[in-house]
């Protein structure tokens, strides 16, 4: 006997829980979820199947309502299935159960000509009678605008998952798919990231149908095509490919459909995941597809000949194809006078260069090319660095990492504290670092200007890639000065030039410069935008007539 056990209780076995991992995962794993079954004429078979598929004995939100349906003054067994919280219970009560269960003019009426007797009561004419019975219910008993008849369980289950209500009736080998979606959703709000001062203040929401309606409303043209695609073998996430049929290039649309229809994954939750799945290839972190929360931006893109991809459950749309200049464009540009818009665009271009190169340049100049500084400035830098014991690369990386920490910290903290944290962090940390002779004041200025410039980049993903590449240029500048930076610029430039997005060169329309009427980086006046971008090869090259202001020239079309 163990003496220790007399004084101390110890359990018999140590608690050790491990998940047994499967060693050989195969591609077939993806295909096991496919349901290849059709609706049976026996209600009991259908009921048992649905109960087992939805685990209705365990899942509390799956509602199966059994009842007796009245048709032609006769009662038939039936059941409804839907998910509580996803479907609108009130609508189901009023427009499904009430007309079917309560005696009324429709379900008690007996016609002279037609005989919609259930199949089981007249076995000889099974197919014809069954169809007539189903049609009678469809046409007269369920007063619902979006109703369909389904025979595949695959589709039925998918629709229940997305909030529909399904009606099964005894003796019928079809089910009625009632679009009774009624889940709670966020209402249309102001854009959170792409704010503008002058321009529409609507942003996409999580619901795909609301988003398509936003597009439809703004496009206001019958040529807008919204094609639905389901992605994810388990999640069956609804996606929509939207484009203007008479403008978008046919090959572009075919390619987009091809890519969307050939994705073999279990689940798709966000547009960011889809972006990775449909982009042309690895791009060393450079974003290839533009994502936006603004419907007006999407509509503008569609009128240029691009396509939009919406993902259900995500308030961001993907614009394909996207080029580099799109990532530096703000939705405000088209709302401003060209002079102001181009001024802002020039500022953004400078910000792009500063964000990418300033720390690297600073380190290269201070270490290798001091002659570039005017003598007075060089002296002040030397005086400022006199008491700093660290090498300049350490100083710079310390401040850059600190800045990234403040930025990340500001994002993760609640919004009320976030901005305060940023200011306090930047001011106090910077001041203290200079006072403690850890860094020089000039370096604080360099890091601050770089940080400010990174905020000027309108696209978050694009700004992020610049933040990462900045560190590479800093190291190159430290190792071999302008030689390293020059090589870095060439490799970066060649890399972005090698990227293609849905067959369009990333640096279009700058290179390849196909013809004279490409819209370049800067925005011409609206009346001068006569042609669509030729790199998109739209069906209609001309966007507006040469004299768009007819009132001015007195020109008649």
């Amino acid at each position, binding site marked *: 006997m163990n003496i220790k056990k007399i004084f101390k209780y110890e359990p018999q076995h140590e608690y050790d829980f491990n998940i047994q991992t499967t060693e050989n995962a195969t591609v077939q794993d993806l295909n096991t979820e496919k349901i290849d079954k059709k609706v049976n004429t026996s209600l009991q078979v259908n009921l048992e199947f649905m109960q087992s598929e939805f685990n209705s004995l365990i899942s509390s939100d799956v509602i199966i309502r059994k009842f007796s349906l009245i048709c032609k003054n006769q009662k038939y067994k039936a059941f409804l299935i839907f998910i509580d919280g996803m479907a609108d219970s009130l609508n189901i009560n009023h427009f499904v159960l009430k007309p079917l269960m309560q005696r009324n003019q429709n379900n008690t009426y007996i016609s002279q000509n037609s005989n919609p007797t259930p199949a089981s009561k007249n076995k000889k004419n099974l197919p014809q009678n069954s169809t007539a019975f189903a049609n009678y219910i469809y046409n007269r008993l369920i007063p619902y605008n979006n109703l369909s008849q389904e025979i595949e369980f695959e589709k039925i289950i998918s629709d229940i998952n997305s909030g529909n209500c399904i009606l099964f009736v005894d003796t019928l080998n079809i089910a009625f798919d009632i679009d009774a979606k009624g889940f709670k959703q966020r209402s249309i709000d102001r854009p959170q990231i792409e704010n503008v001062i002058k321009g529409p203040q609507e942003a996409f929401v999580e619901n795909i149908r609301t988003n398509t309606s936003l597009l439809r409303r703004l496009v206001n043209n019958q040529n807008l095509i919204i094609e639905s695609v389901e992605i994810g073998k388990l999640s069956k996430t609804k996606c929509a490919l939207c484009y203007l049929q008479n403008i978008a290039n046919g090959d572009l649309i075919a390619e987009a459909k091809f890519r969307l229809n050939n994705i073999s994954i279990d689940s798709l939750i966000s547009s960011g995941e889809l972006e990775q799945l449909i982009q042309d290839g690895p791009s060393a972190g450079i974003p290839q597809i533009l994502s936006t929360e603004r419907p007006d931006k999407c509509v503008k893109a569609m009128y240029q000949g691009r396509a939009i991809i919406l993902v259900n459950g995500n308030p961001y749309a993907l614009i394909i194809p996207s080029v580099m200049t799109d990532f530096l464009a703000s939705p405000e540009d088209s709302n401003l006078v060209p002079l102001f818009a181009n001024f802002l665009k020039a500022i953004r271009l400078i910000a792009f260069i500063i964000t990418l190169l300033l720390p690297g340049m600073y380190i290269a100049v201070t270490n*290798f090319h001091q*002659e570039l500084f005017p003598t007075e400035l060089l002296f002040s830098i030397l005086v400022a660095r006199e008491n700093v014991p660290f090498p300049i690369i350490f100083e710079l990386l310390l401040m850059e990492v600190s800045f990234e920490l403040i930025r990340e910290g500001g994002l993760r903290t609640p919004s009320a504290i976030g901005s305060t944290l940023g200011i306090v962090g930047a001011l106090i940390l910077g001041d203290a670092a200079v006072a403690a002779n850890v860094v020089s004041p000039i370096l604080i200025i360099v890091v601050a200007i770089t940080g400010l410039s990174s905020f000027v980049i309108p696209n978050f993903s694009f700004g992020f890639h610049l933040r990462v590449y900045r560190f590479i240029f800093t190291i190159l500048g430290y190792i071999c000065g302008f*030689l390293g930076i020059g090589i870095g610029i060439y490799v970066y430039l060649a890399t972005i*030039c090698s990227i293609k997005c849905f067959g369009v060169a990333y640096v279009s329309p700058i290179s*390849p*410069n196909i013809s004279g009427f490409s819209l370049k980086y800067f925005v011409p006046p609206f009346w001068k935008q006569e042609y669509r971008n030729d790199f998109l090869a739209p069906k209609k090259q001309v966007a507006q007539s040469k004299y768009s202001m007819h009132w001015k020239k007195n020109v008649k079309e």
Partner: protein
Amino acid sequence: MEKINNKEAISLTISCSLGITVFISSQIIASECLSSSLINTGFISLIAMGLTLIICMLYKKFIGISFLDITEFVGGKFLKFIVGSAFLFYFIFTLAIVLCKAVNCLQIVYYPMTHPNYTVLLFVITAAIACNLKNNGFLRATFIIVPIVIVAIFFIFVGNLKNFNYENIFPIMGNGIRATFFEGTTNLFTFGGIAYILFLPQNLKRPDKFMSISLISIAISSILLTFVTATIILMFNKNVTSGQLFPLYIAVRYIEFGTFFQRLDSAFLLIMNIAICSFLGIYSNLCLGIIKEITNISDIKPVSFCFALLLYASTILIDAKFELEFMQNTFFKALFFSVIALGLLILIIANLKKSYKKIEINN
């Protein structure tokens, strides 16, 4: 390689000449012809235009056909291999000598403690990366870089206007008519773009525009050569032009804009580094294209690393074992004239053979 449009083709051809012009030939022209350098520049520019015109005329019967395929038509696969190898040798030598010169200059100015082999290695790695990029990345980058380099050259010229000593162009004939027009003809090697033009037609989206593309490229290259030579000759005497540094760099040191921009040479160095990388990218891709054609290798990407090693070895070999001045003044010139003569000869024979075959068919 994807087909390229007219503007891209022009930028590529200019870039091929630009590397040689900036780093090698402008200095040689200035030191050999002295005050008659500008006349020599004009003279060789005219010859270059004429030569280009002849090549374009000879290509008229072979629109859009690769030069090596024409060679095969003339003398079979063996000749194709020999000619391909000769051009390959010329292009690798051009790369190596330009790289050698640039690296030597960098070492003197900024990196005296660094062995040039490390600097060469950096450039060679860049060339290997450029070769492995998809979708003509190097080509589109060149299209963006070339205008920047042209602006920089123009800027150096304009920035130094006040430093020009116009007496330097006298006596107008420099070392005499013989040195300017006969011996000076050898300076034609500055137009490395002519050798590149031979390999251009098969890559063009519109091969029918081959003549205009070639002539425009050579004309722009001539203007740039004139600017570079004029800057050097109007600013410096013979001692500077025959030194180890490339004189254009020294010219930049004289530019001053007020009290803030006192020394812009390192900014020029940055642009020139990018230009060298672009030059390396173009020539490396061209060499890989030739290797692919003469060996029928389906995937050329793995060869790019071997090519990078070969380039590295060639550059450090020239740097370590040979007198750079001799290589660039004598061997490089001879090599250029040999390959151009070879190219012309093949095109002429191909034209004759085609005409002969046509007559035979008609008979």
